[in-house]
């Protein structure tokens, strides 16, 4: 059985308005999961169980859908989520070198988060800015025409900004 204490951490009341709106609409599971991830930053286990209960399905079904889509995360992410593109255009223009530079600079692998919780790295396929390739986004900001040096400088800039506050 699921560890009860691990299941009882999240503030489930935050999700109530979302469930009130979407639970009665059929086919809304993905939308509910997207809202839940916006609220909690990821999909904690207790939230997934709660969604299953409230939408009248099984936890297995909810988990099955959530794990199918790359957007959903089951671990918290860092304050800055780096999405580095390795789509075709970015790949041809050297995204592998950028990935290597970021990995070495932050000491994390794809999917990992730095020990200080500041940065997470996700390598994705195509951000739709292919003409500026190689491209990465950090939270809501996009950066194009990257070089390994430029990528590292952007991350250092963010780190310096954090240290200043």
């Amino acid at each position, binding site marked *: 059985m699921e560890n009860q204490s691990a299941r009882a951490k999240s503030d489930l009341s935050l999700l109530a308005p979302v469930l009130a709106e979407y639970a009665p609409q059929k086919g809304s599971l993905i939308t509910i999961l997207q809202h839940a991830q916006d609220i909690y930053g990821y999909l904690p286990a207790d939230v997934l169980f709660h969604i299953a209960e409230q939408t009248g399905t099984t936890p297995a079904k909810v988990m099955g859908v959530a794990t*199918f889509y790359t957007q959903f995360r089951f671990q918290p992410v860092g304050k800055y989520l780096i999405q580095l593109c390795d789509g075709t255009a970015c790949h041809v223009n050297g995204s592998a070198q950028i990935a290597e530079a970021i990995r070495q600079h932050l000491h994390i692998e794809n999917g990992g988060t730095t020990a200080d919780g500041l940065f997470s790295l996700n390598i994705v396929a*195509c951000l739709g800015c*292919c003409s*500026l390739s190689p491209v990465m986004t950090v939270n809501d900001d996009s950066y194009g025409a990257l070089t390994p040096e430029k990528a590292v400088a952007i991350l250092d800039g963010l780190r310096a900004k954090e240290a200043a506050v």
Partner: protein
Amino acid sequence: MSIRIAVGQGSCGIAAGAAKVFAALEQQLAGSAVSLGTVGCIGMCWLEPIVDLYEDNRLAARLVRICPDDAARIAEAARTGDLSGIAGLTISAEDSRFLEQQTRIALRNCGIIDPNSLESARAAGGYAALEAVLTGKGMTPEEVIACIKVSGLAGRGGAGFPTWFKWNAARQSPGDEKYLICNADEGDPGAFMDRAVIESDPHTLIEGMLIGAYAIGAKEAVVYVRAEYPLAIRRLSHAIDEAKAAGLIGQHILGTDFSCEFRIKAGAGAFVCGEETALIESLEGQRGMPRLKPPFPAAAGYWQKPSNINNVETFANVAWIIQHGGEAFAAMGTEGSKGTKVFALTGKIQRSGLVEIPMGMTLREVIFGIGGGVRDGRQFKAVQLGGPSGGCVPAELLDTVIDYKELSATGAIMGSGGMVVMDDTTCMVSMAKFFLDFTAKESCGKCVHCRIGTKRMQEILDRIVSGDGKPEDLDLLEELCLAVRDGALCGLGQTAPNPVLTALRYFRPEFEAHTAVEKRCPAHACAALLQYEIDAEKCRGCTACARKCPVGAIAGNVRQPHTIDKNQCIRCGACFAACRFDAVSRL
């Protein structure tokens, strides 16, 4: 004379700094009579950020690669009407030709109108086709379908199926509850046509969808947009709200009996959800696994009701066709492929951006004529069309015309419009592996051929690029390709072998070099196959390489020629990059 400034703010413009330029201009123009606005993407992405100056609605100057520091000069010119101070920022005649060589139908308003303003869309003729269909003399649904049939419009999402046929099938399907769905999943990496249309001209999409909904008899329309396109989702939902408020969406559209509601559904990141039946599963809140066809969506689609799915670009052509007549559209193109097609030109290309051209142009005209050819003075090697479902076309086939049949004959496909140019530094084996890595990861796992076949192919390619390939691997690879192509359930698996098959077909010697006894990568791209040597004649003994070598594999005294211990060397290339005397060679 009134001057208006428009800043191109599509995602790519913003990534290049357009929002900062906009803010700087706003500050400089505070209190002046000059109006400042936003437009979408004109498609000249390599020149972003782009700022246009309009004089009484006539384009007076197009300024390129603008940074916030230029704002003061631009504002001054706009206030005084004296444009001499900004002459240096103006686009070159050479670069202007990029647009002049195009024929814009789907992109007709992109980069020209304000995507956040219904008024701006209507001033450019938006919803006139819908009015012509619904009001006055009007058109029956059958007449709309007949007009689309005359136009020869085929689906722009990849398969190129005649649009009228699908509309007709959905119309003929029995039942009152029907759905019209727009596929804006745009999963092909390297393609961004649909994003640009939605971000730059959402009303053209909405209008095309409304006409489609009327034709098939749908009362509900859904746009499935991929999650990676937040700006497109914001602009589209704003456009839907505005259209609703103006009586263009909802009940009794334009005061007629036609009613249609609109909804946006954000995808959650799965390439296979671009396949229409997987998309429907995803719309229903399920894992996005394709269904077996038939039944086709026209018979039993969304919630098992008759549904019609079209791509964004397909819909973006509809209003133009209604307004100008099917014949005008069919007058462009080739025997079997009518109208225009939008391509996203990227990779190692001089001018990277969006182009819309009449079918029938050659690949060479697009890549060299419009795109300016390969960047950095390098050699053209191949162009990849159609992404993970497509293939690469080599230099000797550059005169192939853009036509569904002609492109398929090369082994590639028209695809949705991704056109990624590769130069002589690109290794075709590693590109084949790149696409297989993608499809193996994105395979939904429902059918064995795709789930296991792509995995085995990936392993073989992995082996080859790591220097462990055997000559007989190539035949095995080809055999697997054919088995997966014939055995897979949906288009993802059926087309996944295409990138490998075309690479094998046109670049077999490159594969053979990788698997031969010497194991070479002619493009010098596969790190594991490279060998580094120091030319004793050229080496000055500066020690730069030895200091950079992470494993201490380079020996030699100061001012004496150095040597690399091949057994210790990890082939990272640090010495090659460090040498200033061209003494390190890469084999």
